[in-house]
């Protein structure tokens, strides 16, 4: 098997045992990127020198008899909204086209402490706002399964990179489905941990109460491996949980006998593509055959999730993006002597932000304005509480909940750009996990139409990634879709 097709665990074992060097691994993936990325545009930056440097250090340490970390020599790509000291971080926005952070995100530090090798930054929708990776200052990313289609978004670059074997692992961020939906579109595993499980320090905030960083991988076991390496309390992020971090690898027993899988039949009955429905029903069948019990559940408030999500996320975004003002860093419009402060703000932000970001800043500003706050923001928070209770009740009867990840297979580039509402509906099955803080994972569950990937979404109880991953892993083994590779 080519190095490129190996799982992260295999690579780690090879490097740790000294059968393959970290430099060999790194070189293989760098040349794969050079080969296919011109057709995909999954990366916004590749720093081969830095990566090879790290790989050499790992090899040297192994040679010196040092014990290596759990990600020894495994290449990984970071979504371009995650800071790495000294590496340009743009969030795919013109407003940050020259920004180089003087600090690293906690997750980047923890991955490097586990001896992972960071290859570079991946493309995304600007400030993670979008579902197609088309809202990017670096141009759109293409889907490795069908290059005229979108890889999903906002973490489309990371999903495409893992699907195309440009990296065995990548990190994304998920605010309303931005890991799970591109995972589904690209036929890879995309994992959103429980809110508070992984530090957000160094993640460029989109909506602080919804954002979580999570991994893309080709297998559930690899995703679990990354989660173990970066999860847990971070003194630099007051919203990380004190919850103990279990051994996620050990949870993957392959045995799901008697596990109750809840299916919200009413909720998933409408607006779902025929091919997606078929793949989903087959996946449920596979789960049942593997020993799981299917139970019907109700999520009466799930139908409000999209409006609630767009009220909450735009409100927070309008405030989070206020710091990009052209004063201390990032893009500042060129000004003439008579221009005042207001002009500087207006022009810098008008030039720096793209259309979708502006739309959301305006929406969010409106939502928080005097006279509208109660009707919009406050009401949205109240419905958010009701939605959370829906899930609490559902989890009294079920151990995990299953839904399609996205209502459609990957759509064509440009197809939805003029119709933001249609684009927002792409998130219908994913946003409620963020609103409720719950963990969710998308696992490949086959294809729709002419080999367009479809994902099965599993959601778990708060901080019970272990059960969710156990079911996902058992399904993956039974279904075997993970062995498929895209034509590129």
């Amino acid at each position, binding site marked *: 098997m080519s190095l490129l097709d190996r799982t992260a665990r295999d690579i780690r074992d090879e490097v740790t045992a000294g059968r393959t060097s970290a430099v060999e691994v790194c070189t293989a993936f760098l040349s794969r990127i050079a080969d296919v990325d011109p057709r995909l545009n999954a990366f916004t930056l590749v720093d081969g020198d830095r990566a090879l440097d790290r790989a050499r250090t790992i090899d040297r340490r192994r040679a010196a008899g040092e014990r290596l970390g759990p990600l020894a020599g495994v290449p990984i790509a970071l979504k371009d909204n995650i800071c790495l000291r000294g590496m340009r971080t743009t969030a795919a926005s013109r407003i940050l086209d020259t920004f180089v952070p003087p600090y690293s995100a906690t997750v980047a530090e923890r991955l490097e402490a586990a001896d992972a090798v960071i290859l570079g930054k991946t493309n995304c929708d600007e400030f993670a706002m979008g579902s197609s990776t088309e809202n990017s200052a670096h141009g759109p990313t293409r889907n490795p399964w069908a290059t005229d289609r979108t890889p999903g978004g906002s973490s489309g670059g990371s999903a495409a990179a893992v699907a195309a074997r440009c990296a065995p692992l990548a990190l994304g961020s998920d605010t309303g489905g931005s890991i799970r939906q591109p995972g589904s579109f690209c036929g890879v595993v995309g994992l959103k941990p429980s809110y508070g499980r992984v530090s957000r320090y160094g993640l460029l905030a989109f909506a602080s109460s919804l954002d979580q960083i999570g991994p893309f991988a080709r297998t559930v076991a690899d995703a679990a491996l990354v989660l173990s390496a970066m999860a847990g309390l971070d003194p630099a992020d007051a919203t990380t949980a004190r919850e103990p971090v279990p051994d996620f690898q050990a949870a993957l027993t392959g045995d799901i006998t008697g596990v109750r899988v809840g299916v919200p039949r009413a909720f998933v009955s409408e607006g779902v593509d025929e091919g997606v429905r078929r793949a989903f029903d087959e996946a449920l069948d596979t789960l049942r055959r593997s020993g799981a019990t299917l139970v019907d559940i109700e999520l009466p408030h799930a139908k409000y999730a999209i409006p609630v999500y767009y009220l909450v996320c735009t409100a927070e975004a309008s405030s989070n993006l*206020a710091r990009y003002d052209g004063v201390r860093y990032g893009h500042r419009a060129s000004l003439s002597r008579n221009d005042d402060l207001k002009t500087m703000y207006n022009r810098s932000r008008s030039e720096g932000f793209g259309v979708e970001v502006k739309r959301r800043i305006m929406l969010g500003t409106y939502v*928080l304005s005097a006279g509208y706050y109660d009707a919009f923001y406050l009401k949205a928070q109240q419905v958010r509480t009701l939605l959370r209770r829906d899930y609490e009740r559902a989890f009294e009867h079920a151990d995990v909940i299953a839904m399609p990840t996205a209502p459609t297979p990957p759509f064509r580039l440009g197809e939805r750009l003029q119709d933001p509402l249609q684009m927002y509906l792409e998130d219908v099955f994913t946003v409620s996990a963020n609103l409720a803080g719950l963990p969710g994972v998308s696992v490949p569950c086959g294809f729709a139409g002419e080999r367009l990937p479809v994902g099965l979404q599993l959601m778990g109880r708060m901080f019970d990634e272990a059960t969710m991953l156990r079911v996902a892993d058992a399904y993956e083994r039974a279904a075997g879709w993970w062995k498929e590779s895209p034509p590129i």
Partner: protein
Amino acid sequence: MKFDAVVGLEIHAQLHTRTKAFCGCSTSFGSPANSQVCPVCLGLPGALPVLNSHAVDLAIKAALALECDVQPESIFARKNYFYPDLPKGYQISQYEKPLALGGGLDIDAGGGKRVALTRIHMEEDAGKSLHEGFPDSNQRTYLDFNRSGVPLIEIVSEPDMRSAAEASEFFTRLRDILVWVGVNDGNMEEGSLRCDANVSVRPLGESALGTKVEVKNLNSFRYLRDAIDYEIDRQADLIERGGRVVQETRLWDSTGGRTLSMRSKEEAHDYRYFPEPDLPALMVSEARVEAVRRTMPELPEARRRRFVAAYALPEYDAGVLTQSAALADYFEVVATMARNPKAASNWIMGELLRAMKDRGTAMVEVPLTPALLAGLIVLIDDGTISGSIAKEVFAKMLDSGRPAADIVKAEGLAQNSDEGALVAIVQGVIAANAEAVAQFRAGSAKTFGFLVGQVMKGSGGKANPALANRLLKRELDRG
């Protein structure tokens, strides 16, 4: 028309912490610009705030000192507005659920009253825009973020004050308390204590409140008094001439001695407050409040009452001595060691405070330890020296820090209680002042004082005054 003024104050006090509210940067004053900054207080992308727990304890301490109810749960909120010295584009503050509610403070002005407090909330300071002092200041504004993220509390009073004098006393007492409990350093020049006033007027007897005007930039007690007086006059004048007060924010112009309009209600910001999603709710347990309470020094008011009761001091003395914790501590040591509280009070309020004022020294720098002053008082009380000699000794102690007993011994200042020697001096004075003696015998009582003075002079000031009196009277009666 007669008018009644209504004044409420909003006070921003810097919490006396070593590090900032949400990051580990130093809060020290006067460092080079932008030398105390990090990704968090510069608002760099992806940086997150983490609450300084010492700042919370100090805020609780202030709330307890001002008799507020500390809330078991308070919530940080974002106050959104654009300004170059506000790096995140929002200030982290508290809005709907502040740290503490209620409380109040007694003042003497206006016949004595209690000014109620509305709330105390925690927030962070902004950076500083430097519009002047650079060669290209006519083209550019520079920014210093050393202050950005420094922890503050905002104390909001009810509109319970009716004059500039009441507001000024309220602010003075508030400052004294904050300094007393160690929450704030009271330094208004460095901006660690700032005050805004809400002022309105209404015709006397009217109960509805008039339209209020917020006056900013009151960074000294004098500005506060002057600005409120000015504003009361301006508003009363406006109404008398048939005009209407508009709701607005005004700025005190100290050079012009007037307030100037800064922005009207229409131009007021919509701050779009919402709960800060990066910080969990601040939960303050009863145990934590009690732990803070145990670290509280006795408050000035309580100490003043105790000084009157325990040391039998007049109200006035107790008031003066409890102006600062350092002074009150000093007094207590002297009073206890000398076993004479009233004498201790007299010496401290008289000689010591005067000397400190003359020399411009602060209490902590006083070279005269409480033990030294107590030693002096003991020498007076046991009759070793007279009161007038004691003043001389005091001055020498202040300069040298030598014990009073040493000075008295070395310079032969002990008072003369040797009856035989004094009788001789008395007889000499009687012989030398025949005229005065005759006047005394003719009934002029005040001549006696003159004769006593002559005896003291003859003894070089060392005669025991009581003994001199008695002997003079006896000798005069004899003659």
